[in-house]
C-alpha cells in the first residue's frame, strides 16, 4: 500500500505528463473523466498531476521532519542518558516543557513570524520547505528523547557495555558502537509514526493557508481551495483528503507492525 503510494508519487509524473498549472477554463470543475482521471479544479487544472506533485511534497516533508526529530531526540536523549545528575535533570525538564507546549499554535506562530524573511533567503518554495521541516521536527523530538534516555539508562548497566568500558573504550565509542545500535529498535517505531504526524501537520498548515505558498499544490492546500466548492465539485476535496488519510493510515500500520515485532511483552 505504502509502496504503491510512493511509487505513484515518484514515477507517476513521467506516466502522466500533464503540467500542474495548465489552465483550461473550458474544462473547469469537471468530475473524473478519461482526459482528467481525477477531474479538474476551478481553473481547469488537472487534479491527478497536482495530486502527484503534492504527494511528493508531503512525503518529503514527512521524512525530512522525521529525520530532524530523530536527530535532535537521539542527541538529547543520549546526552541525558549517559550523564547523570543535573545535566540529565535539566534536559528532562526541557523535554517535559516542550511536551506541554501546544504544537499547532506554536507552529502557526513561528510560520507567521518567520515566513517572509526565510522566503527572502531561500526562495519561495525552498524557504517554506526548510522552515516547515525544521519547525515540525523541532516540536516532535521529545518522545524520541525520552525513549532514548530510558533505553540508555538500562543499557549502560548491561554486561556487554561494562565489558567495553573495562577494555578502555571511550564514552563516545561506548555510545556509538555498543549502546546506540541496541537502543534503535523502538526509536525506529516512533520515527515511523512521526512521519505520519509530520504529514498531518504539514497538510494542516497548508489547509490553514500558512504552509507552502498557495500556487504550490499540496494535499492540504488543495483541500483548502476545494472547501468552498463542496456542493458542486465534491471530488476535488475527496481525492486529496483520501490521499492524506490513506498515506497516514498506511504509515501507522507499518509503525504498528514494527512495534509488535520489537515488543518483547507481546502476548498471544
Amino acid at each position, binding site marked *: 500500500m505504502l509502496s504503491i503510494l510512493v511509487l505513484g508519487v515518484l514515477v507517476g509524473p513521467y506516466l502522466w505528463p500533464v503540467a500542474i498549472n495548465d489552465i483550461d477554463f473550458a474544462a473547469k470543475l469537471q468530475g473524473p473523466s478519461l482526459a482528467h482521471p481525477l477531474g479538474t479544479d476551478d481553473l481547469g487544472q488537472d487534479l491527478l498531476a497536482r495530486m502527484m506533485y503534492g504527494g511528493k511534497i508531503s512525503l518529503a516533508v514527512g521524512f525530512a521532519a522525521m529525520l530532524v526529530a530523530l536527530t535532535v531526540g537521539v542527541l538529547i536523549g543520549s546526552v541525558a542518558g549517559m550523564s547523570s545528575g543535573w545535566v540529565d535533570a535539566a534536559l528532562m*525538564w*526541557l523535554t*517535559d*516543557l516542550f*511536551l*506541554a*507546549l*501546544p*504544537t*499547532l*499554535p*506554536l507552529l*502557526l*506562530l*513561528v510560520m*507567521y*513570524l*518567520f515566513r*517572509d*524573511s526565510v522566503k527572502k533567503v531561500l526562495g519561495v518554495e525552498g524557504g517554506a520547505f526548510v522552515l516547515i521541516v525544521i519547525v515540525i521536527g523541532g516540536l516532535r523530538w521529545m518522545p524520541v528523547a525520552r525513549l532514548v534516555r530510558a533505553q540508555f539508562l538500562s543499557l549502560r548497566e548491561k554486561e556487554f557495555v561494562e565489558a567495553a568500558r573495562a577494555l578502555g573504550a571511550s564514552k563516545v565509542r561506548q555510545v556509538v558502537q555498543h549502546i546506540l545500535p541496541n537502543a534503535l529498535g523502538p526509536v525506529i517505531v516512533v520515527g515511523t509514526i512521526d512521519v*505520519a504526524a509530520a504529514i*498531518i501537520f504539514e*497538510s*494542516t498548515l497548508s*489547509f*490553514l*493557508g*500558512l504552509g507552502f505558498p498557495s500556487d504550490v499544490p499540496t494535499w*492540504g492546500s488543495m*483541500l483548502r481551495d*476545494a*472547501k468552498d466548492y*463542496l*456542493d458542486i465539485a*465534491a471530488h476535488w*476535496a*475527496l481525492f486529496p*483528503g*483520501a490521499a*492524506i*488519510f490513506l498515506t*497516514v*493510515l498506511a504509515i*501507522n*500500520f507499518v509503525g*504498528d507492525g514494527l512495534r509488535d515485532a520489537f515488543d518483547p511483552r507481546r*502476548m*498471544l
Partner: protein
Amino acid sequence: MNRQYIIRRLLIAIPSLLGISVILFGILAMAPGDPFEELATNPAIPPEVRMALRAKFGLDDPVWQRYLHWFSAMVQGDWGFSFQSRMDVDRLILQRLPVTLIVIGASQILAISVAIPVGVLAAIKPYSIFDQIASTFAMIGFSLPTFFTGLVLILVFSIQLDWLPFVYRADINAKGWAFYGEHIKQSIMPVVVLGLAQAGTLVRFMRSSVLDVIRLDYVTTARSKGIGERKVIVRHVVRNALIPVVTLIALQLPAVFGGAIVTEQIFRVPGIGSLLIAAIQANDTPVVMGVTFIISCLVVLFNLIADILYGWLDPRISFR
C-alpha cells in the same frame, strides 16, 4: 491524599509556565521586523525621531530587560490592544474562550464515553473479531485528519442530506427551547469531528491499559472468590486501568487544542482558534501572542489537574 503533594505539583507548574513564556518571548524577539519600520521609509520623519521612539518604548534595551517588561505586563493583564477588533486583547480572548472550552469539553466527554466501553470490550477478548474491528476503526479515527473528517461531514449532512447547518451562528433568532435546540444542532458536527479524532487514540490507550491490568493476581483472586465476571471487570479491572489513561488524556491536550483550531476554522465557530487564524491573516501580533499564551497556560493547567487527579486516584503516588 496529602496536601504536600498538591503543593509540590503547583511549585513544579510555575517554572514550566515561566519556561513557556521565555520560549514565546524568544520567538517574538528573534522574529524579524520592527514596529517602527514604516517610519524609516517616511521622509517626513527624521531618523532621530525614530531612534527616540525606539528608546522610549525600550526597543534598544537588552533582551532580558525587555523580557521582564513584557512578562510583568502579561501578569498584570495588560496584553496589548488588538488593532483589528479595536479592543483590548484580554477582553477579546475572554469573549471567545467559553465557546472553545464548551466545544472541547463536549468532545472530550463524547470521546471518553465512546472509547472506554469499546476499549474495555476489546481488551476482554483480545484478538477476537470485535477487537479486530475496534482496533481497525481506532486506527482509522486516529489517522483521519480533522479537516478532512469535517469536510466529509459537511458534504454528507449539510449538502447531501441537508440536516445540519455547517456555519456556526452566534445570532440565533429564537427563544427558550428552540434557542438551545439550534445551538445544539449547530454544535453537533464540530463536537463529533473533534471527539472522534480523540476517541481513536483513547480506545488504543484503554485497550492496552486493561490488558496490562487484567493479568494481575488480584483480578484472579477476585474471580476465584466467585465474584461475577461483570463485577470483576467493572469494579476491579476498569477502576485501576483508568489511572494511566487520565495522564494520557492530559498528554493529548496539546493535540486537542490543535484539532480545535482546525475544527473551529472549518465550521466557523467563534472560539479562540478561529480568532488565532483571523489574527494571523490580519497581522494582528498582540492577539496572536495572547491566544498562543492562553492556550499554553490552559494546557499546563489541565496537566496540573490531571497530576492531582492521578495522585488522588492512585494513593501510592503521594508517598513517593
